[in-house]
């Protein structure tokens, strides 16, 4: 495998892993926030929406200090490894996916909530049904999370260290090429990154579309 495909592979691999973990957290949490009413729920929703704009460089810095050898999570020895980059991107993607899932779930719950709990089903049992109803919105939510992770540079360069052959992603390579004055190379790499984002988005939408026409759309 040459260096270029390695860099592209690492970028996509890390972003997919982070998006997957973020989705695993965000889907149930986002739907639950719509289904369960409890004190402080509004505050949590406001906070999650605020974290939409979490500055990557701040996430990177806090995580850097936490994962540092002299930090509380230093024993993991994750600093300057892909694992640290996955954690950073997961932190960035989770609020975005959660907020979007919550918004869609709220609408679905307002419309189908009574129906879903009418036959004695608990609210907890309603959560997977809600997610099923809003599955088209989930595609957008998860893609938004993926977009955040794959395009980000501030956090991964801090916790990954841009180590050649280990933690060098497309975005950190673009930053490096620019600093070496290789602007045309940096721009070409940028075009590849945008192309990959478009293809992934197109693929997911195509798959989602097929799933919708193949399966029953009834609730």
């Amino acid at each position, binding site marked *: 495998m040459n260096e270029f495909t390695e860099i592209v592979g690492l970028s996509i691999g890390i972003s997919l892993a982070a998006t997957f973990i973020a989705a695993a957290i965000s889907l149930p949490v986002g739907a639950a926030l719509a289904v369960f009413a409890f004190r402080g729920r509004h505050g949590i929703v406001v906070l999650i929406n605020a974290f939409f704009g979490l500055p990557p460089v701040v996430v990177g810095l806090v995580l850097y200090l936490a994962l540092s050898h002299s930090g509380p999570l230093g024993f993991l020895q994750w600093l300057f490894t892909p694992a640290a980059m996955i954690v950073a991107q997961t932190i960035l993607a989770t609020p975005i996916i959660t907020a979007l899932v919550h918004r869609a779930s709220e609408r679905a719950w307002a419309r189908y909530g009574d129906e879903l709990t009418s036959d004695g089903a608990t609210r907890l049992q309603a959560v997977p049904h809600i997610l099923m109803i809003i599955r088209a919105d989930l595609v957008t939510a998860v893609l938004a999370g993926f977009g955040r992770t794959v395009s980000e540079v501030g956090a991964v360069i801090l916790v990954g260290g841009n180590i050649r052959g280990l933690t060098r992603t497309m975005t950190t390579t673009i930053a490096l090429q620019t600093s070496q004055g*290789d602007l045309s190379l940096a721009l070409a790499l940028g075009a590849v990154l945008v192309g990959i984002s478009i293809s992934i988005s197109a693929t997911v939408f195509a798959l989602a579309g097929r799933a919708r026409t193949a399966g029953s759309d009834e609730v």
Partner: protein
Amino acid sequence: MIKFRNVLALVATVAAINASSAADQSIVLASTTSVEASGLLANILPQFTARTGIRVNVVAQGTGKALDTARRGDADLLLVHDPEAEQQFMDEGHGSKRRQIAWNDFIIVGPSADPAHVKGGRDSVAALKAIASAQAPFVSRGDKSGTNAAELRLWKLAGQTPDALKDKWYRDIGGGMGQALNAASAMDAYTLSDRGTWLSFNNKGSLIVAIEGDPHLLNRYDVIELNPEKHAGAKLAAAKLFADWLVSSDGQQAIGAYQVNGQKLFNPSARSPK
């Protein structure tokens, strides 16, 4: 909906990535941006890895940040170029052994129009005085790197204390060498650069070398091993192998053989430190 088994598999994968990188013989080298941006490390590391099987993971930072990374225990070895900051690091007891591996020189580069009329001179201090009195744009790294420290020492010798907030011509960009050169090229400004980064830089625009050959512009690179009493967790044995290789005749030869466009970037100096 949520396939818990997949999550577990993923966590296992992450753990495996981590375990494999820890199990391999690899060390983290915190280094200056110049030795990476100039291509030196990419050129000589494969030779060391082929011989020893030890992978060297380079985290390229400015010297100030690299020293901090090592202080925190996040690096196994240092390759830096700021004699004063290095001495402080040694005095604090973080380092055990500091050896010079190579030198080259700093240069002052500037726009070919040369508004401060300093082109072709050798005296860097006089050049800075001329730049300041002409209020010609000057880009400062402003990032506590070795080059930034060298620049501030030169201003001190010139009896000047330019202030980025007051002096519009003095532009503190807080970035790496490449960023500073990009900025200088875009703003037709002067800046202090290490020769290695300059020679391998590809966006020079109208920039030319204005001042070179001043003894004040000497740029020394040192390898620093860490003190086992303060950094027991570091991979000091593997780090020592690399440090020893850098000063060995093989390592010195590899450093001296590295060229960009037919020009030697680093002069090996382990035998006779400058």
